[in-house]
């Protein structure tokens, strides 16, 4: 049944070779944890990617209940936690997942740095990677405000105030970030839009670049 379906599609689109090319792509023995357990350090990037997929899925379902509005965001979050089947679990997965991603991405970066992988010819991928790190931190920062509780409000107050110290454009930047003179309704909608629309689009684009470059350049040898 399954094979017939695959054959039917392949007769028309020939997707199997593409998939085989990805799934059967050999990796060097030194990055294979089943050859050498210490090779698990090569998995941090992949684990980050898995976590990102989980964040996409949990986030989409959270948006079924969440309202980005100062009157309702706190209440809708509370409703999701207390009155929706597995709502609390879903929220917690998204919440813990975000922390895990930051941990894994930091480990990933440390591995790259430690092994000097950023050197020629991989400088561009290092730049893409740093961009991805910034995007992920922005995800964390914007997502933190969304429940609109005390902690979220004041953490954002502090975070947005950092912008003030940027030379020359600081005050303007602070206003642009918070959508007004202080943290309020416009901040929340702004952060929501950034968190669920702008950042995911950018993340997907840069992840695509990241992976294409890895495929083109291969995994570095042992140093």
């Amino acid at each position, binding site marked *: 049944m399954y094979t017939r379906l695959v054959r039917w599609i392949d007769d028309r689109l020939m997707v199997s070779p593409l998939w085989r090319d990805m799934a059967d792509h050999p990796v060097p023995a030194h990055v294979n944890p*089943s050859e050498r357990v210490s090779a698990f350090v090569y998995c941090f990037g992949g684990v980050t990617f898995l976590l990102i997929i*989980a964040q996409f*899925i949990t986030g989409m*379902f959270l948006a079924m209940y969440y309202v980005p509005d100062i009157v309702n965001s706190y209440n809708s979050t509370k*409703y999701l936690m207390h009155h*929706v089947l*597995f709502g609390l679990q879903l929220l917690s997965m998204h919440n813990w997942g975000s922390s895990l991603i930051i941990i894994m991405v930091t480990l990933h970066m440390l591995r790259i740095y430690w092994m000097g992988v950023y050197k020629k010819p991989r400088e561009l991928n290092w730049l893409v990677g740093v961009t991805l790190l910034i995007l992920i931190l922005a995800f964390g920062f914007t997502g933190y405000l969304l429940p609109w509780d005390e902690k979220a409000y004041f953490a954002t107050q502090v975070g947005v105030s950092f912008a003030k110290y940027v030379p020359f454009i600081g005050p303007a930047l602070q206003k642009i970030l918070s959508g007004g003179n202080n943290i309020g309704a416009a901040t929340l909608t702004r952060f929501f839009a950034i968190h669920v629309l702008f950042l995911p689009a950018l993340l997907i684009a840069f992840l695509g670049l990241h992976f294409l470059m890895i495929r083109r350049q291969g995994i570095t040898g042992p140093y």
Partner: protein
Amino acid sequence: MAGKRPQRAGWTRRDFFNWVLNVVMGIIAILVAIPALGVAITPAFQNPAPTWVNLGAATGLQQSSVQAGTGGVGTVVKAPYSYIEVDHWAKLPAADYAYLRYIGGSCQFFILSPICTHLGCHVNWIQADNQFHCPCHGSVYTIDGLNVSGPAPLPLGVFRWKMVGPDVWIARESTFTHAHQRMVEAPAQPCLKEA
């Protein structure tokens, strides 16, 4: 016996790791899917409790119904009310009305929902015809709320009600619940008064 399992011979180390990988990924996928689907299908299992709202003093309601009727027999009057609507996480002040009639006896009041059972418009009480007319697609109901013509598939819903001190309180439920409460075999004027 051993010869009956030839596929074992082809079970390589690589196959084993592939299998482990698939199982682990499958478990992760299930762990993510369970809460996600739970959240999506929650509405199917939710049955919100009715909102009890105050229609006002029973004596006043009785008087207005009798005054609108003829010869001391009460007729249908609009009984407006306002309440706080609890819509999931949102709480909003809202207002609506019920059609109330004083029928005397032990039941006293017969209180109809104004929501047309066709597609949910508010029906109008036409005193001259002694009928409810729906302005949207022309459904007609008797004074007891029974659907007599037009597309309406069910009689008008009847409010459960109770006395709280001197006041009449009605149980607002979803339109759906109201309409289905009233069985085809139920009397024209089911007494839904609660003690």
